[in-house]
């Protein structure tokens, strides 16, 4: 039975939930009853106005053909990293590195679940539950109840190499429900890389707790398989002097909804979230939704949202982003930018940028724009002999540049840019 069908049942019976030790079983049971109370998203929900939840919860599970990457090395292949591989949502010990490292506790959720006592108990489903206001996020709740695996990571020092979650997709009719929990202790540093489509239908929850002075860097590349669907949630709590930075690149994909809920709870913290999405609806559907909610609940914190989308041939983009500044969050510096570049009249972009501010000494700005290629710039390039398709792609990459700049590691940023360039070049033929 597919996830879709199981989700339609809404009320998930105890036997349907993956077997696990006491602490996880409790968290799952709690999630199941919360889900029963809130129900699944419907077309009538304001929060799902622009992204139809239907295909995520319908009884008919859509398949997704596995893309032939034609020998292309996956992103991050050159990075010295600790690799954790899932194939269609199933952990592959063979392809993964040993789960160990200095200053690092890392294990599969399935293993952590077998233990009666575990530190992850204080986080699993906890940040997710906090993230259920002011709107319900039922698919995340479903994930908490039903996740089959994931990783739990605790970092106590500055890790010498990134942890890299690799999500391979081999079965055209697969579901992956993964839930990972990450705790950075005071002053710890972790770079988390994620890449790959994961499955035909992917539900992902990441709960990230960034303690005082810690730094979390996240770079994610969602797989290019055309018909894959992904709904992801990142729930983060960011404490004093800590840094949280997350960047996602998305190319292709029938349906992607990336939700991110960030609670800034300690003074002088920094939270950045960015995304670059490229979609061409000519031969395959493309629908991409970024939904972000940042709460400032501490003094002198900085938050940045930088989302860029390039759309053509009926590709659709959605952005819902909110900054909430609580009464005591003075000296907040909040910034939200959401821009789309529509390469033709068929593409569409819908945006709902929101600010809700209860403190008086703050700087907050938001800007959402929908634009076309700059004709002046295009002519300038063409007048230098650059053919229109190449000139257009140069301007597309230029448009995405300030989102990509949010990636801390320059080599990774250059790699991401290079692959986008290659994708554009392939399309030019």
């Amino acid at each position, binding site marked *: 039975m597919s996830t879709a069908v199981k989700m339609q049942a809404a009320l998930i019976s105890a036997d349907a939930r993956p077997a696990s030790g006491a602490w996880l079983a409790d968290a799952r049971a709690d999630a199941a009853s919360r889900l029963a109370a809130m129900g699944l998203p419907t077309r009538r929900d304001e929060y799902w106005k622009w992204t139809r939840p239907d295909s995520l919860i319908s009884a008919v599970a859509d398949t997704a053909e596995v893309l032939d990457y034609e020998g292309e090395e996956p992103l991050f292949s050159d990075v010295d990293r600790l690799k954790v591989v899932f194939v269609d949502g199933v952990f592959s010990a063979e392809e993964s590195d040993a789960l160990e490292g200095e200053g690092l506790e890392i294990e599969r959720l399935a293993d952590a679940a077998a233990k009666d006592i575990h530190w992850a108990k204080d986080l699993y489903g906890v940040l997710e539950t906090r993230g259920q206001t002011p709107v319900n996020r039922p698919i995340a709740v479903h994930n908490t109840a039903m996740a089959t695996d994931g990783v739990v990571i605790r970092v106590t020092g500055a890790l010498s190499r990134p942890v890299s979650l690799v999500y391979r997709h081999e079965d055209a009719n697969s579901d992956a429900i993964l839930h990972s929990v990450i705790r950075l202790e005071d002053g710890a540093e972790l770079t988390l890389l994620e890449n790959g489509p994961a499955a035909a239908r992917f539900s992902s929850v990441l709960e990230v707790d960034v303690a005082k002075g810690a730094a979390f860097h996240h770079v994610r590349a969602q797989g290019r398989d055309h018909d894959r669907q992904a709904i992801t949630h990142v729930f983060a709590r960011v404490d004093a002097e800590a840094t949280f930075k997350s960047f996602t690149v998305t190319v292709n994909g029938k349906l992607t909804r990336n939700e991110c809920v960030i609670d800034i709870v300690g003074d002088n913290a920094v939270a950045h979230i960015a995304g670059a999405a490229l979609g061409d609806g000519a031969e395959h559907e493309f629908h991409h939704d970024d939904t972000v909610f940042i709460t400032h609940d501490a003094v002198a914190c900085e938050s940045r949202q930088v989302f860029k989308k390039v759309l053509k041939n009926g590709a659709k983009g959605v952005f819902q982003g909110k900054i909430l500044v609580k009464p005591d969050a003075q000296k907040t510096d909040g910034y939200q930018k959401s821009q789309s570049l529509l390469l033709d009249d068929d593409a569409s972009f819908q945006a709902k940028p929101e600010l809700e501010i209860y403190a008086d000494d703050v700087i907050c700005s938001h800007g959402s724009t929908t634009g076309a290629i700059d004709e002046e*710039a295009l002519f300038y*390039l063409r*007048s230098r*002999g650059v*053919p229109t398709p190449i000139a257009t792609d*140069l301007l597309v990459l230029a448009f995405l*540049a300030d989102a990509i700049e949010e990636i801390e590691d320059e080599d990774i940023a250059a790699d991401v840019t290079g692959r986008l360039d290659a994708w554009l070049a392939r399309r030019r033929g």
Partner: protein
Amino acid sequence: MLKINNLHVKLEEEDKQILKGVDLEVPAGKVHAIMGPNGSGKSTLSYVLSGRDGYEVTAGDATLDGEELLDMEPEERAAAGLFLAFQYPVEIPGVGNMTFLRTAVNAQRKARGEEEMSAADFLKFVRAKAKDLKIDADMLKRPVNVGFSGGEKKRNEILQMAMLEPKMCILDETDSGLDVDAMKLVSEGVNALRDEGRSFLVITHYQRLLDHIKPDVVHIMAAGRIVKSGGPELALEVEHNGYADILAEIDA
């Protein structure tokens, strides 16, 4: 080299005729200057020749070495050897100047059936040309024209010209915004390119530039037409007396 014959141009969106029968011929290896009052159509002529949108040619034609220019796309005109140094160079945030130059050089090579330049060769090439124009490494790294001063933008135009080695160069007020030293630098850059096989059409308001870049012929443009042509002394006359006498003489 460049032959413009009875060129009539109106704005596409408005019923406004801007060029009203321009006749002009620039032979190979020659430098021609165009002077003329503000709004007389000088920039429009340069844009129409390089293929910018927004204009409609209602009569006449223009050829480059016998090839019909006005039928070509802007990039084809560039590959055929036409270059316009813009009066107002365009800023392109997010595109590095170096990437821009390399893409342009290689695109033109490709169009001509030549091999693309290797990264190392390109770097050597661009550094040498940039040095002549006192363009520093920082300016090459920055996004195209973004945050460049007026004079830096103009030098960047000449750098592009030096790298693309076009055969027909149109310079639209490249001297405006340049300080005395930069004017010398730019002129030297232009003079270094002077060659039997290369022609220049220099649009300017000032005699000063023409002291450095000696023109063979000076044309006066007014109300969308070339109304008078002569030797370098014509520029001096404009410098001293303005356009009033010349225009009166024509009206008479």
